[in-house]
């Protein structure tokens, strides 16, 4: 039974608990619980709201007009089919990295190095993508995608083993693997895998290993750069939601994340769950690299990711590690990133403000008590006004 089910049963006034359903203590407890649940759902929204307000204060202090800034940002993210496509394009890798970090968090692991696994996924996609030339798309594309996932998982395996066997903290190890992976890719694209010419990048992938654009499949949406990776992302989110809720593996991951000692006593192998969960997280991050290489750039180069692994942390936290919520949070951060360029161009505000907003959102979601405190302040004032 999932947490939500348990809560539902507890909160159900019709449940057979004779003599207690009407006791004032019980009603008070129910009221408290309903309140806490509402706060839990409201926190992400309120956090985003507070971050936007603090962001405007920062813009004002820099002598810029926040309204012009945010409206330029909005039009850059949703102003037309091209802009919406750009938002979806940037949301796509974020769904995967968001899922990667969220899955880790569910198992009590902080995969701060998703960026490195993403790089390895991109590397595998570029490498295998060139090898499969000539095969039919329906065979080659899945091969490329699977190899990227495998490469991401492999890059997470080292930190996973070190965590499970030695207790080495994954925050440090995945971060270090992330640096190592980036230098590895940097070496390969300047050396062994470099295409002829001056630019350090690989040869362009053949059409067999690309992801088609949404507008190629559905011409009525208008010209834009979004590719069908966004659909893969949504499917992946639903799949991960299912894994966490309905499979033994997902149950074990959540149990270990909730209480490793109790899980071990209950017969779950904590160390194998840690390894499995971090590798799944790495595989998801590897897929983010695959969609970037297969859908956006069609090749690999040094800077092919603009920090999607790190933004994935913000996505997961904002979504409260709920896979379906990850889709929404990825769309928000995709929109912020798509709109940031327009904001810089039209309102003269540095697009780095997006990092500030991201940091603030993580801070506020993490410090739930700030939001709880703000709500209680507001509701108390509301009650006082009513009197």
């Amino acid at each position: 039974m999932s947490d939500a089910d348990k809560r539902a049963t507890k909160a159900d006034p019709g449940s057979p608990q004779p003599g207690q359903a009407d006791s004032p203590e019980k009603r008070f407890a129910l009221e408290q619980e309903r309140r806490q649940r509402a706060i839990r759902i409201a926190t992400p929204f309120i956090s985003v709201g507070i971050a936007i307000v603090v962001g405007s204060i920062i813009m004002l202090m820099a002598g810029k007009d926040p309204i012009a800034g945010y409206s330029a940002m909005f039009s850059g993210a949703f102003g037309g089919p091209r802009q919406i496509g750009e938002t979806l394009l940037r949301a796509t890798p974020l769904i995967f990295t968001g899922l990667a970090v969220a899955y880790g968090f569910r198992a009590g692991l902080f995969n701060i190095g998703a960026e490195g696994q993403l790089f390895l996924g991109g590397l595998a996609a570029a490498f295998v993508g060139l090898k499969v030339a000539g095969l039919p798309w329906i065979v080659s594309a899945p091969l490329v995608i699977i190899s990227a996932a495998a490469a991401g998982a492999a890059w997470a395996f080292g930190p996973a083993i070190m965590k499970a066997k030695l207790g080495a903290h994954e925050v440090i190890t995945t971060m270090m693997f992330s640096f190592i992976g980036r230098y590895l890719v940097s070496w390969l694209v300047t050396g062994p895998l470099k295409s002829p010419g001056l630019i350090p990048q690989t040869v362009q992938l053949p059409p067999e290993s690309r992801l088609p654009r949404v507008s190629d499949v559905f011409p009525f949406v208008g010209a834009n750069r979004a590719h069908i990776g966004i659909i893969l992302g949504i499917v992946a989110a639903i799949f991960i939601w299912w894994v966490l809720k309905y499979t033994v593996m997902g149950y074990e991951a959540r149990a270990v994340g909730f209480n490793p000692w109790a899980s071990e006593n209950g017969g779950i192998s904590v160390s194998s769950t840690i390894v499995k969960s971090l590798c799944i997280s790495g595989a998801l991050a590897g897929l983010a690299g695959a969609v970037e290489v297969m859908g956006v750039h069609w090749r690999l180069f040094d800077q092919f990711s603009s920090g999607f692994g790190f933004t994935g942390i913000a996505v997961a936290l904002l979504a409260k590690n709920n896979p379906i919520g990850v889709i929404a949070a990825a769309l928000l951060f995709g929109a912020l990133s798509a709109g940031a360029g327009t904001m810089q161009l039209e309102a003269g505000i540095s697009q780095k403000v997006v990092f500030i907003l991201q940091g603030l959102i993580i801070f506020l979601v993490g410090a739930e008590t700030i939001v709880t405190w703000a709500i209680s302040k507001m509701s108390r004032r509301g009650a006082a006004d009513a009197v």
Partner: protein
Amino acid sequence: MLSEIITPELFASAVRLATPIALAAIGASICERSGIVNIAMEGLMLVAAFFGVITTLFTGSTWLGVLGAVAGSLVFAALHAWSSINLRSDQVISGTAINILALGVTGFLMETIFGHPGTTDSVDRLDPVFNFPVGGEGPLATIWLWIDTVFLSYTPIVYLGIFFAIFLTWALYRTRWGLRLRALGEHPRAADTVGVSVLRGRWVAVLISGLMAGLAGANLTLEQVGSFTENMTNGRGFIALAANIFGRWIPGGAYLASLLFGFADALQLKLQLFSDVINIPPQFFLMLPYVLTVLVLAGVVGRALAPAALGKPYKVKG
């Protein structure tokens, strides 16, 4: 070739390169001994490095720049203290938020003040403390050259790093403050019961880590590089956390562990000069500190040595 690689300058550069990592690692050891995880060291260093340069540019004084660096770092450290001690939020999440916030704030201010991303204008760096004459022929002159380069050639914050490593190790084990601090990280409830203020003790520890990160950032920009580049800390804050673990949560141990990283970094820089002889791509040299960090962590079993209450929020009973 070996005599060209093993020079006094190699060891001096190891100490210099170790200093920002060491200061951050010392800060992390004090902070974690009080029970607070501080993965924000990376962000604190970055903020300090930036405000060091900005303050120096606006006041014309590098020493005021050092104060600016420390002040900037302390503000962000206070944010971490407030959220992880008073609001009892997840310390790792709070630290991550501060790391991203630091990237955003420094990048945003950089573009707002200088009108472009990348690197700031250059500032005057701090001079070495001593300036003894070297030179001459014979074994005595060579010995003096080694002594002068390896021990007497450094800028002020490098010596401050050595001072804090010794002083804080002494304070942690030989003073009442140190005993109380260790108690906060091992068993805060017990400390609270006998009248030690958990909140105040932890606040002080987090602020000390902010001071250390501030000096680390100042060392990077005001002693080593002379200008600020976006994201210039480049993972040093995380390496410092590993150095702290390797140094067993003891400031002096953290310093020695950092020397290892500094030496690896100095060696890879030196070896890059011989790239025509040793035919290895530069990326492999650049990987070295990170690979070393992983190896070091694989070599120590960290969990058993960590303070027992590390990362656990403490609620004062009303």
